[in-house]
């Protein structure tokens, strides 16, 4: 089995954290991270970044008045007006 070097491991980090790698590659990245403190630190940093993004921005919701306007427009369309 080929071993990943640091550059290759880092190139796969986001896909690894997003669970988007094939099982073979997951194993290779995990093996590399177990042995390389520097890349393991990098992985923790990228994980923080991805978590921060999701936590900050995914809580925005469609304002109630906009929702009401859209539902009203749908009802009007349903009546064929």
């Amino acid at each position, binding site marked *: 089995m080929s071993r990943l070097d640091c550059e290759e491991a*880092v*190139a796969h980090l*986001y*896909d690894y954290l*997003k669970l*988007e790698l094939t099982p073979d590659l997951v194993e290779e990245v995990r093996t590399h991270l177990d042995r390389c403190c*520097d890349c393991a*630190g*990098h992985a*923790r*940093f*990228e994980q*923080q*970044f*991805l978590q*921060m*993004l*999701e936590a*900050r*921005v*995914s809580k*925005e*919701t*469609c304002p109630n008045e*906009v*929702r009401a*306007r*859209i*539902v009203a*427009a*749908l009802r009007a*369309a*349903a*009546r*064929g007006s």
Partner: protein
Amino acid sequence: MAEPSTAALRSFDEEALPHLDTLYRVALRLTADPTLAEDLVQDTMLKAYRSWRQYRPGTNARGWLLTILRNTFINDFRRRKHEPVAMDLEAVEPHAIYRSVQDTDPEGTFFSQIVDAKVVEAIDALPADFREVLALSDIEGMSYGEIAETLKIPVGTVKSRLFRARRQLQARLYAHAVEMGYIKPREAPR
């Protein structure tokens, strides 16, 4: 022209309306303008409703709606919006910000000092193609495969856009954090 029936309206309410928040957030990222985002979501929902019979119940309603949102944006909205000038990063791979902070802030605590509005501003300053994949993946949690299907682009393109979008966003957030004094810039190597 015949509009969908009451039963169709009910199924639309059940399958499409729950995705309104997602559509709104993605519309905000695409337009980077709340007023345009509202119009874009409303137009999208009306179009989706009128073509509801083309939707196969129980399939991926979110992806179906997002495809309509995207087409509507491209056809009717893109020219109404002032697009930020793309940074010249298509060719240049931005370096990992981790390299700049690994000695001073390896856990990236500076991210938590940046206010929500600045995070949003930094995302909205990215080129449109980057904002789009970032919103779908890192904010809405869609898989790369689902994004590829929604945007009609190869999975490899989704990956490479995401990679560059995340790096570019980090660079912007880092620059902001340095500017605000949340983090000290790394001294230039002597």
